[in-house]
């Protein structure tokens, strides 16, 4: 797997969306991909959406990031935390002829309810802010600021709803400015040459099922292929089957042999789940090893990034 898989080619896209079942390492995978891309000379920005700043923390940022502030954490490696409220503020300021009008709208008593009450509006604002990042260009040179945007997206169901929001709005609004913009965003999201969706999973039954469902949902609802699956926290198998039988018969140190056999059985089960996943999805599946540490920092991320080279 050391050679880049040309079918994936994440570096050639404008947007990589990382989603997956909750607790499956989405943030870790997104951050590791960003580290790997920056190491390859790509100007990359990692966008987080739920204000917890997990990915930022793994990248070594001590404080919870300010929403909507783009910062360069390491050479070519940028980060931003997207929050729908400030996205709305930016959006209106951009769209309206005057700042005063935007402020009037924002301070009106009805407007916030309107936004909160419109299903999918927050999702649309969030994905709209992501789209802006893909388009952002330098005032000085006019060149795009970022070659690649990596989105640490919400978990599967909500993530899919977010990717669908633009087309829903386009259909619902039909005319008007939002429809036009939603259409543009939708064009980006449904073009597999420009956007890749990567799923984070774990080698367990439920995450594997959810990943298979995600691949189907992407195909049926958005006509998009899943670009790759990254299976996080895979345990190495310390023993072959024959060795495990010998260890099971050993008399000494039952705590130690028991532990080694338990790891072996778990690895076998995980191997089975990964096989089931590989058989069900058409995209490459790469694995990341379990790291027996509670805190993943820049060092561990660099190691994981190396494993994701094949996807670039």
């Amino acid at each position, binding site marked *: 797997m050391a050679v880049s898989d040309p079918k994936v080619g994440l570096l050639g896209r404008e947007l990589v969306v990382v989603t997956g*079942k*909750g*607790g499956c390492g989405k943030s870790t995978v997104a951050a590791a991909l960003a580290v790997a891309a920056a190491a390859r000379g790509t100007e990359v920005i990692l966008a987080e959406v*739920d204000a*917890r700043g*997990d990915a930022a923390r793994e990248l070594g940022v001590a404080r919870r990031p300010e929403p909507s502030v783009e910062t360069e954490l390491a050479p070519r490696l940028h980060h931003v935390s997207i929050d729908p409220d400030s996205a709305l503020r930016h959006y209106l300021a951009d*769209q309206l002829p005057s700042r005063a*009008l935007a402020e*009037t*709208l924002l301070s*009106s*008593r*009805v*407007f916030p*309810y*309107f936004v*909160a*009450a*419109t*299903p999918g509006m927050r*999702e649309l604002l969030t994905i709209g802010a992501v789209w802006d990042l893909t388009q952002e260009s330098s005032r000085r040179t006019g060149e795009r600021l970022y070659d690649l945007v990596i989105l640490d997206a919400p*978990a599967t*169901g*909500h993530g*899919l*709803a977010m990717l669908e929001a633009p087309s829903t709005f386009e259909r*619902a*609004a*039909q*005319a*008007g*400015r*939002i429809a036009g913009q939603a259409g543009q965003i939708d064009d980006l999201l449904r073009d597999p040459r420009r956007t890749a969706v990567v799923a984070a999973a*774990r080698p367990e*039954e*439920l*995450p594997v*099922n959810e990943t298979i469902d995600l691949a189907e949902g992407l195909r049926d609802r958005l006509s998009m292929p899943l670009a790759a699956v990254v299976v996080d926290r895979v345990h190495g198998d*310390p*023993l072959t089957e024959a*060795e495990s039988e*010998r*260890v099971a018969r*050993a*008399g*000494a*140190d*039952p*705590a*130690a*042999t028991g*532990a*080694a056999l338990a*790891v*072996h*059985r778990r690895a076998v089960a995980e191997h089975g789940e990964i096989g089931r996943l590989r058989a069900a999805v058409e995209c490459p599946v790469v694995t990341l090893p379990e790291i*027996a*540490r*509670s*805190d993943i920092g820049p060092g561990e991320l660099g190691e994981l990034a190396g494993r994701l080279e094949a996807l670039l």
Partner: protein
Amino acid sequence: MSGALPERLEGRSVVICAGSGGVGKTTCSAAIAMGLAAEGKRVAVITIDPARRLADALGLDELGNEPSLVDPARFAGDGIEIDGELWAMTLDAKRTFDELIESLSPDARTRDEILGNRIYQQLSGAVAGSQEFTAVAKLYELDRSGRFDVLVLDTPPSRNALDFLDAPERLTGFFEGRALKFFLAPTGLAAKAWGRGTGAVFGVMKRITGVDLLEDLSVFFRALGGLIDGFRERAEGVARLLEDDGTTFLVITSPEREPAEEAVFFRRKLREAGMPFGGLIVNRVHTVGDGGPTPEPETVAADLGPELGPELAAKVARAYGEALALAERDEASIARLRRETGERHPVIVPELDGDVHDVAGLVAVHRWLFDDAQ
């Protein structure tokens, strides 16, 4: 030594299992329900998204959206006798929402208008928040039916535990809010806004969003107008139920950092909201040995060398060393959870060997939850 669940659940009629996704919440919920049913109670467990095989193991009918009785014979082979009744269901969020609209609609026309509305279809579908709301709506309905002694609710796998606590309030706030009043107003601002297109604010809104969406919204809100009282009543009932003395929240987590932080956060929110906290369950804890001695990995390599050969002995020692490291990590996490939640005796369930998504797995988890002798 862990805190025994049975006495903590004594006299409770609603048990809500909260926590992050991926920590085994559904399995714990089902095992708790099974344990209470074994004690002779009539129990219903509302699950959100069970593993296919857990659903099969319980014989869950996915299409029902109503609890179905689990055949006690399913557990007989694993030594569990159900003296009471165990009922189980998988929540269908969309259907629960539709049923709520049906029961609250004053007439068939209003019902059809809402169910057919594009905005409603969006709202009741996958959009975040509706699953939380429908879960408590179902809980409330089953509680009022009086058919069960205990209800066990497995909460939706939302990343933010707050979504669940706030769901009823958020949704009713939305139904009662100014937006609704605004859309319902027959004259005044609303009429001006899209009747004649005057008023900078609404003119802009219309220009940006497109007219159709506003019309959909307006129809939606108008139709919902007739349901407001019903919704308010329902939401108040739900809020009372969540705060009731018969209700208790169990916070379930794994020892991993993110779920553990979420558990601490949720414990704090429960305290702030004045909700009853019934205990902390730490699931999937890595352990080594059965409480016997745990020698140093180097000793192990030397001990096993003669029997297994140096190479294999070293492999075992290394795997064992890694297992010890994981167990230490988890122990540190539990100590921290104790400190930060104020729960002195969390219930500890080890990472179980093999499959937990079947009857044998449920019984194994049950043993750790209900057996004080662990």
